[in-house]
């Protein structure tokens, strides 16, 4: 049985201050969302950027959740980059949706792509 998958969600941000909605489904081969990591191309984009997330209609991060709480620098090992969920969040093909909001920081380059990684696992609990 496959135990881990890192599912990538690509969010295209076209302009300064843009709000972009994203939707999708988790891979149905995996039971649980274990963690999340957001990667932005420039550190200055992290000032004030927010990401909301709903999985199966339940709020995981409400609007205004700071991307800085979900990201980290390049020097951090891959298995330590993720914000880990203490609660059990069902994957199993569950629908997810959310919004990414760019903060409109001066000096940033547009367009860019925000990458959201979901860490999916097959464990029931850990």
């Amino acid at each position, binding site marked *: 049985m496959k135990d881990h998958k890192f599912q990538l969600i690509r969010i295209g941000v076209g302009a300064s201050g843009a709000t972009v909605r994203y939707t999708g489904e988790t891979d149905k081969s995996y039971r649980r969302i274990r963690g999340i990591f957001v990667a932005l191309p420039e*550190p200055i984009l992290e000032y004030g950027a927010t990401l909301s997330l709903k999985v199966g209609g339940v709020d995981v991060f*409400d609007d205004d959740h700071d991307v800085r*709480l979900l990201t980290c620098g390049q020097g*951090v090992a891959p298995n330590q980059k993720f914000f880990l969920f203490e*609660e059990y969040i069902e994957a199993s093909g569950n629908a997810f949706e959310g919004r990414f909001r760019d903060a409109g920081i001066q000096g940033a380059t547009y367009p860019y792509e925000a990458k959201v990684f979901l860490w999916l696992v097959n464990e029931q609990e850990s």
Partner: protein
Amino acid sequence: MVGQRAGVVNGIRRLNKTIEVFRPLQVVPIDFRFPGDVRACFGLQATVVGRFPVDRPVIPAFGEYSLEFEGKKIHPVNFIVPWVSQEVFSDATQHRPDFLPLAVQVGTSRMITGFYHDLDRQRLDALPISGDNQEARPFQPYSVRFTFHCYRV
């Protein structure tokens, strides 16, 4: 990680409350109510949202805040908010910057009150003014974002 001490739990809400600061030394009141499905608050994070022309990468005490729960019955938090340059701290794991563990049971009141106080660090830590322009830099308005980590009912 603090939240993991409780093991795997079924429901967590992460509530965000953002306040705006427009003047140096401003005191901004905080006054809101937890939603009905929150039964306890187990942690709090406060982050300054803004980018400032200051001469150091970290200002440990950019502002201070105080929070009371349950209609001022419980007063567990008096703390400072740092400002951190994202460019300089690119190697750090920052999932839980300044996470304050709490164990506040939310009862009938659900009120959270308190204040945030700007400590005027934008002026005190400003980059030296060079050239002919000797005017002080204007205060740059910013936000402070509070994230409350709560268990659902």
